[in-house]
């Protein structure tokens, strides 16, 4: 269905934009009243958006708006639903953390958060190179400001600087690659690019030249090696609530970006980008897992673990086309989607616990700060342990199901090289298990250094418990989410 002015296709973006403006203005009215209201309003907005996107996604409709500038397909709507929920959870977890650190000046926390989500939404729905780039810039500009939100805090500012310089370079890469593709194909429309390339009239060299830069831009968003340098510094330097904001919803946008550009646009070049993704996956698994072992800071360790986890997502993405045959594509891409969605879920809970332990004027992000957590609070130690075991891929947690589906996609290609990659990934996840276990060890086997009780607001306790429980429950009954991902991908591929 192509509709010239299909407002329906962009209503989530519109709602977000309007609400971001409303919340920004709200703070001008009354400072004291503004903050709780801004919190409640943001959470409500996100909840409504998540529900509406979810309902819209389950109807299975695909709408192209504005002459194909934006796409609103089930994959986009599910990803939007999950991204909105992720930001909602981030707001809930970060409420007291942010307030304690004076980051609530004038509601920027909420406004910037919503704007970054706007960028995520635009990226997810992009049907055109320029729209995609606009979404990316909206997301990253808001993120730079968020990282620097504690402007009196040196490490945060340093992280923001690093992020900005590297991020600007990555945007440049992407833009350069897109312009090469535009030059070669004469269109910015993703579907148009696909048609032009599939026609086989265009010089392969130019396309591959552009492709290299596009893949670099995508890899930067994922944080895959060798474009991973920013991840540890930014994850570590940014206030934990902001780290979570960067580590959760934007990963869904990165996935969507990879699908839109590489699959919807450049599928005929799959044989070229598969090799790149394969090499980056190997590098990510190696660097992420090995470097994580040496970390003493939990946020930094989780940052390196993210790099390794993204290696798995790339493996899922590269298993889609075998010898030019796209039969297993749906299987492979949906395994990658399942992986990234469950990764976000797990990340939310683990950073939630880190924020929970942080108090005013004290960041609890060293691994040693978790010593004896089981004796201080079995519940939160349990949630953290569930997350860590899940990231390590131990059944019956959801991380296992995610790894299983990616490995299944790799092995079912029946190519020795891919099976070799699966074995490599498996060996790497053994190394990964070591550093996750080390944190569990600190929480359960070591004596606590502090006996202060851990208190959290009711909303945070409830959401965190639910989040931790989901990591376990989705591991035991993953069927529904897997089917959902599979259907979304099938519909995306069909159109």
């Amino acid at each position, binding site marked *: 269905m192509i509709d010239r002015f299909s407002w329906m296709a962009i209503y989530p973006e519109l709602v977000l934009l309007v609400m971001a403006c409303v919340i920004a203005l709200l703070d001008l009215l009354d400072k004291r009243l503004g903050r709780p209201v801004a919190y409640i309003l943001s959470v409500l907005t996100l909840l409504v958006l998540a529900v509406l996107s979810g309902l819209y996604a389950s109807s299975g409709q695909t709408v192209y708006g504005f002459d194909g500038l934006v796409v609103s397909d089930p994959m986009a709507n599910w990803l939007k639903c999950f991204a909105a929920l992720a930001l909602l959870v981030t707001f809930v977890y970060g409420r007291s953390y942010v307030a304690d650190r004076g980051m609530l000046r004038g509601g920027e926390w909420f406004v910037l958060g919503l704007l970054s989500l706007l960028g995520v939404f635009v990226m997810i729905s992009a049907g055109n190179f320029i729209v995609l780039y606009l979404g990316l810039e909206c997301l990253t500009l808001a993120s730079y400001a968020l990282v620097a939100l504690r402007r009196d805090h040196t490490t945060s500012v340093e992280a923001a600087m690093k992020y900005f310089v590297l991020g600007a370079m990555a945007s440049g890469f992407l833009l350069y690659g897109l312009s090469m593709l535009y030059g070669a194909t004469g269109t910015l429309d993703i579907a148009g690019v696909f048609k032009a390339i599939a026609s086989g009239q265009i010089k392969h060299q130019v396309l591959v030249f552009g492709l290299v830069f596009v893949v670099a831009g995508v890899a930067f968003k994922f944080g895959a090696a060798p474009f991973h340098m920013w991840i540890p510094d930014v994850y570590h330097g940014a206030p934990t609530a902001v780290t979570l904001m960067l580590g959760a919803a934007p990963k869904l946008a990165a996935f969507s970006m990879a699908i839109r550009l590489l699959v919807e646009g450049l599928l005929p070049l799959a044989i070229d980008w598969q090799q790149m993704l394969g090499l980056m996956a190997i590098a990510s698994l190696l660097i992420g897992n090995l470097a994580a072992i040496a970390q003493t800071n939990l946020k930094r360790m989780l940052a390196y673990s993210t790099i390794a986890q993204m290696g798995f997502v790339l493996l899922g993405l590269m298993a889609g086309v075998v010898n030019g045959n796209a039969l297993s594509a749906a299987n492979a891409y949906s395994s990658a989607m399942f992986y990234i969605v469950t990764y976000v879920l797990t990340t939310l809970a683990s950073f939630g616990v880190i924020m929970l332990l942080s108090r005013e004027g004290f960041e609890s992000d060293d691994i040693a700060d978790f010593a004896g957590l089981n004796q201080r609070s079995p519940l939160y130690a349990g949630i953290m342990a569930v997350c860590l075991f899940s990231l390590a891929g131990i*059944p019956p947690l959801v991380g296992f199901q995610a790894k299983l589906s990616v490995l299944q996609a790799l092995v079912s290609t029946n190519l020795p090289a891919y099976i070799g990659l699966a074995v490599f990934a498996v060996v790497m996840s053994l190394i990964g298990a070591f550093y996750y276990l080390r944190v569990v060890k600190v929480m359960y086997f070591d004596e606590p250094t502090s006996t202060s009780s851990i208190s959290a607001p009711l909303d945070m306790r409830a959401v965190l418990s639910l989040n931790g429980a989901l990591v376990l429950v989705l591991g035991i009954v993953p069927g529904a989410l897997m089917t959902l991902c599979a259907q979304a991908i099938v519909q995306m591929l069909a159109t």
Partner: protein
Amino acid sequence: MGWLSLAIWTPILFGAVLLALGRESQAPLVRWLALVGSVISFLVTLPIYGGFKLGTAEMQFVEKAPWIERFNVNYHLGVDGISLWFVLLTAFITIIVVIAGWEVIQRKVNQYMAAFLILSGLMIGVFAALDGVLFYVFFEATLIPMYLIIGIWGGPNKIYAAFKFFLYTLLGSLLMLVAFIYLYTRSGGSFDILAWHSLPLSGTAQTLLFFAMLAAFAVKVPMWPVHTWLPDVHVEAPTGGSAVLAAIMLKLGAYGFLRFSMPILPDASREWAWLMIALSLIAVVYVGLVALVQQDMKKLVAYSSVAHMGFVTLGFFVFNDLGVSGGIVQMIAHGFVSSAMFLCIGVLYDRVHSREIASYGGVVNTMPRFTVFALLFAMANCGLPGTAGFVGEWMVILATVKANFWLGLLAATALISGASYTLWMFKRVYFGPMVNDDVRQLSDINGREFLMLALLAVAVLWMGLYPKPFTDVMDASVASLLQRVAASKLN
């Protein structure tokens, strides 16, 4: 919900309740609840034995429901003559372990009891699973509670042991996972273990799969030379952990050979049987000698476990019905005897806080009642006729002699080394003069300890004097297994 599901989920449910509701202040209540939970969990396994039909190799008590439809993964349970006894054994040992931890564990009682109950359910799941993914999930999930049990309630070097345990076993099982996914692809999208049994596979594929699975099962059994984690872990684990580890967790590996390697990869199994027999004999003979020189009682029993498990794998890979049945009987017997041995060491350790043989001597003078039990279990460990230890070893040696006299002779020497290290340890710990003050102040076992040892003693004697119920159930299944191993799957 069928009986097998009940057997799996009852202990897990009780464990979850203990985790959720248990408070440090209500430790007595937690203990009783755990005991009730473990007893109920054992009772629900009895109908499985009662309703088990002899003379058929078909799976019984089958439950099948779709689990992950996208990958055609089913919640598929069932038992045959091979797995039946392990379901009961697991539930039985869990009761003993709960009783054993009654007074010893004072810290985080609810987590301790919950870990064992959940572990029990998961291990029953391993024995009952008929779907590859389901099996893998249960197989791997057992690592989490065991890791915590060793790490939280273990000895001084517990952290090293916990990591070694987890990473060693994880390495093996991850390769097995890749093998399973490969089988899934080759079988046209099925994780059904029984379908894999009749799946034709080429020689190379079988060899690769055989070694991928060997990595998982050999580590778990453990076979020489990947047995080194076991002594380290046994020494540091709390008594209950050692008992469960020796009694059941090691059996998961040996069971894997019977359920996966041998029927799915018969040609590779036959081709590599020489290797398996060689490794088993090294375990039986060499590790038996290693046990002789140990100073630490737990280490000694750990090495003796490796040697006894060597008998199990030896029996499997001579491919005759006596050997396979003997191996399974040996697994069950070892479950009773090794856990009893570890519990005896635990009884002493709780009083003296030392596992060194040299710290004891003349215990019989102060703990006469206890020494009677210890003697019985030590004799069972040497394989004295009339005890459980004898039946399996005798069957396996007989089977090996059938296959090759010299191999049988080599295996039979283990009876001598087994008797040597067990009896020599027994002599040094229980007899002789009381040189140590700690030993003079020992008090004999109390009612709780008596109960726990008596339950095991009954089992050991029953199995030694009347092994028929154990061997009867497995005849048909073993025969059908051997048929599968004999038939080539090469295409």
